[in-house]
């Protein structure tokens, strides 16, 4: 697989480390009253779809950036690559 890095251009997926579902960006509020339940879901439960899947890849052997890669889990086709930083900021995750 080739991941088209937004800054570095097309790179071999072997340069990256895979973390998992991009929903991991949405870390629950640890002070919420349902935090235990929310962290169980966050840490252990997954959608695991057959089809389009937004996921986190880390460019370990490159610029060490985190990317959100949207990839089809049935065909392995990659349809979009974004900087995870941009995705997280757009969702108000970081100031």
């Amino acid at each position, binding site marked *: 697989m080739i991941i088209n890095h937004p800054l570095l251009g097309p790179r*071999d*997926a072997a340069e990256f480390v895979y973390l998992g579902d991009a929903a991991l960006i949405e870390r629950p509020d640890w002070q919420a009253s349902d935090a235990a339940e929310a962290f*169980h879901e966050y840490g*252990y*439960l*997954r*959608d695991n779809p057959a089809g389009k899947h937004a996921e986190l890849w880390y460019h370990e052997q490159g610029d060490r950036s985190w990317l959100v890669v949207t990839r089809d*889990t049935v065909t392995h086709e990659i349809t979009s690559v974004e900087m995870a930083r941009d995705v997280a900021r757009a969702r108000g995750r970081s100031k």
Partner: protein
Amino acid sequence: MRYSALKILREGLTGNKGWKPVWREPDPKPEYDIVIIGGGGHGLATAYYLAREFGMRNIAVLEKGWIGSGNIGRNTTIIRSNYMLPGNEPFYEMSLKLWEGLEQDFNYNAMVSQRSILNLFHSDAQRDAFVRRANAMFLAGADAELATTDQLRAELPFLDYDNARFPIKGGLFQRRGGTVRHDAVAWGYARGADARGVDIIQNCEVTGFDIENGKCRGVQTNRGAIRARKVAVCVAGSSGRVMAQAGMRLPIESHVLQAFVTEGLKPVLPGVITFGAGHFYVSQSDKGGLVFGGDIDGYNSYAQRGNLPVVEDVAEGGMAIMPMIGRARLLRSWGGIMDMSMDGSPFIDKTDIDGLYFNGGWCYGGFKATPASGMCYAHLLARDTPHPVATQMRLDRFKRGNLIDEKGQGNQPNLH
């Protein structure tokens, strides 16, 4: 129809015209006591043991494709019980004992070959860890045997003992481990279940669950609705897809694992050998091909094929312990889809939906578990209590903090 040497002789003399299909092809009935979704090894074993051990007959096994088309026909055929944790080891040892009596039990030649499995170790620390594992195996009644390099050199002269980076310091044998003809396992269980009245329905894909007021009353399929008192999902690899139809999220990711086979060679490997410093395992099939594999590709996938970086990694693992493998030409490679769970261990459990049961999360160790998985799932379905060796394989164990994490990797499925 029972198989025997006499039967083979008689058929051989009469033109082999008396062999018949070993299971029927029934149309689905409108209602069953138990509907098992998934006609793989585990689903068929579940049906077989439900009929044989628990006297239940009104059972259907629904299979989307044909019997043997899934992971039961795509694995590397290894059986063993060299686990460590109390939540796992008694279960896998029961499985190995069931393998040992399987062919007589279901009167079918599954070519169970206890040719041994050897886990190599490459450092003092790893030896200590393997000694600990061996002692845990003894506690569950399994066999284990520590071998020195001198013993190994005599038995397996072709390994690269003096490898500069990963010298071989010894190994842990389980002599009762080995290989089994994987397709024959599916056929044997299917035949045994069918003979006891189980309906095996192929080309029948489940498209939805009929859930009313928190109770599962049946399934929708491409061959019509089927009502059932209990619905047993047993579709490891596709668990995420199937359980999503019941609105459930699972502690599972689907990953692709590749396997490889070389051209046929003269007998060279006496048993199964695994590399301790990387991930590589190899055995030789009865046809002569070296059957081997290594790590999963490491990203979510439902495609039954992998990518080249893992092929390279597996080949490097092979060359590191067994340089002669470089002379063999690769004949085929293929991929299968694994339910990778959050702690590397499986689930055999009820779900929160009444009447809906779940078996999955086998990571890449499902084949060896086939008989025990079937037995324990049948026990759960028939009695509504977990089998004594499967009490920890629960869906809610993460919530309770009772993980069964053999490798201590945490909730990162691609590391298990």
